[in-house]
């Protein structure tokens, strides 16, 4: 299980190569990349920041939960922080499994859940100003306010 927060370019090739093993028939990869616009407004770059120790713990917990829940063999979750330009990968999730169904489902669940529960934030820089990205609302079990 490779769980990491990095500040340099995410190397998808070496991450997935390290993940594969003989028992795997399928690897599903999600690569989240910086888009050039948000609703038509041109993006210059994004600044990602995290509550880093907690984010790492959460990512590790999610990966363990996904292995148990979907029966996949192994998972890599790598998130990048700092300033990212258009086309750069902010997150890479790779899931290796004997069968493809579990690989797809675990990969989708991981990115969906990561986006709601892992304490990472991004600020988007447009040509005419910057905004903090609106996150998806926390799941009910997290906010019991």
């Amino acid at each position, binding site marked *: 299980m490779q769980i990491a927060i990095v500040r340099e370019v995410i190397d998808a090739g070496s991450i997935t190569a390290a993940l594969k093993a003989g028992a795997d028939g399928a690897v599903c990869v999600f690569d989240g990349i910086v888009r050039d616009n948000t609703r038509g407004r041109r993006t210059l770059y994004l600044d990602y920041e995290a509550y880093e120790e907690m984010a790492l713990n959460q990512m590790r917990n999610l990966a363990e939960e996904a292995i148990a829940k979907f029966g996949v063999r192994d998972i890599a979750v790598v998130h990048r922080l700092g300033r990212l330009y258009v086309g750069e990968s902010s997150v890479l999730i790779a899931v290796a499994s004997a069968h493809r169904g579990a690989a797809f489902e675990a990969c989708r669940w991981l990115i969906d859940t990561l986006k709601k529960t892992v304490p990472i934030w991004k600020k988007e820089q447009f040509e005419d100003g910057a*905004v903090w990205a609106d996150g*998806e609302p926390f799941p009910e079990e997290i906010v019991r*306010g």
Partner: protein
Amino acid sequence: MRVRVLYFGVLKELFACPSEDVEVETGCNVGALRKVFHGRMPHTAWKSMAIAVNQEYAGDEVLLHEGDEVALLPPVSGGAPGNVPWKKIILPSPRTV
């Protein structure tokens, strides 16, 4: 007793600092701390805020202890671009408690 409160994302800008030491009464729980901060934040930033104590999400009933690390967490937005439209959050000038 004292707890260390960490601010992230829009809150770090709102309070113009990444963290503060806050004096709270013994027996204070997350819910009570939440109320203290409620008054300091505009509604848009407050909405759907989560609180973590020592790096675990904590509900209102969780008791605080001397030296706890308490984090105020705006809705997270890691990963790739979301499907949720982004929205400008207006930052008021920082105030003190």
